């Protein structure tokens, strides 16, 4: 089992930097004009997982962006994935 101080020594500054980047991204979105879409809605929802005390936060963030359905879609109309599922938030 790793020592928590060692983990903080190794990764605190990196994680701090990424957290500030997220905050700056949200400020950037706020400053911009136009409508938001489902991607940002899911982003804000996924952020809530970081406040949880249970483990598996990374898994839960990934699931927050995932298609929860089970059946194959009738036809692929694009090859691309955008990182969030359009049907998640109505």
């Amino acid at each position: 089992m790793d020592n928590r101080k060692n983990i903080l020594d190794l990764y605190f500054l990196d994680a701090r930097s990424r957290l500030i980047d997220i905050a700056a991204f949200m400020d950037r979105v706020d400053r911009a004009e136009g409508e938001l879409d489902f991607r940002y809605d899911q982003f804000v929802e996924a952020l809530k997982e970081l406040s949880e005390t249970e483990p598996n936060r990374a898994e839960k963030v990934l699931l927050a962006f995932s298609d929860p359905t089970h059946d194959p879609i009738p036809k692929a109309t694009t090859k691309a994935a955008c990182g969030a599922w359009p049907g998640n938030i109505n």
Partner: protein
Amino acid sequence: MRYIEPHGHMVSRTTDDYKSMVMSGCQAVCEPAFWAGFDRSSPQGFYDYFCQLTQHEPRRAALFGLPHYTWLCINPKESEDVKLAEEVLSIIPEFMQCSNVLGIGEIGLNKNSKNEVLVLEKHIDLAVNNDQLILVHTPHLEDKRKGTQLILDILKADSRIKPERCIIDHVEEHTVKMVLDDGFWAGMTLYPETKCTSNRAIDILEVFGHERIWMNSACDWGASVPLAVPQAMLEMKRRGKDPQYIDKIVYQNPIDFMAQSPRFLKPEDL
């Protein structure tokens, strides 16, 4: 330290990348067939690509003393056109005889469509009928969880499938458990943005163990790093992992899976 790159799309990489990989300890590279970034217009385009994978690319790797292996298929991104897929599938057996072919891959799903499922099943049939290993691509981002579950359901429903001869690639925190629990191998792809980072991959190893799992760069024409595996090795070292542990993840495990094909030769035996 030594490592094997079990998933690299070297047709997209420069000769300098080969040199850097070998200088970083790469002992063998394995190249699944994939999407070129544009749709090929005919089976002839795939025929030429398979010639590139089985003839030209091994020669390019050999310039640096690097063994090159490959996997054949039509990528799920081009599986919506079932007629084209069937035509491509019909030319694959000719190339299965080539000395560097390890199996069928990277097959799988992209957008989880019905035609993709149909073509995946045809690939599985081809692999099983020819006693080939299987390397499976799982979908990107929001489509990964659903696609991984669909793929596992399809494989488990086929009584001919031996899970230990299939690797399910590109797992992340939300898919790795289902893959390992069903007895399959799992691959973690180290990408800057869209898959695992080195640190997350090492976290996954710490949580889920280091059996039946490997890591790869999947370097291709997109945002990817051909030295991602040695970078992860350095990160493991920073976390205090011992050399034997690191060697198992990046060298022994890829050998254990791929040596199930008689075509794969252990680098130390060459």
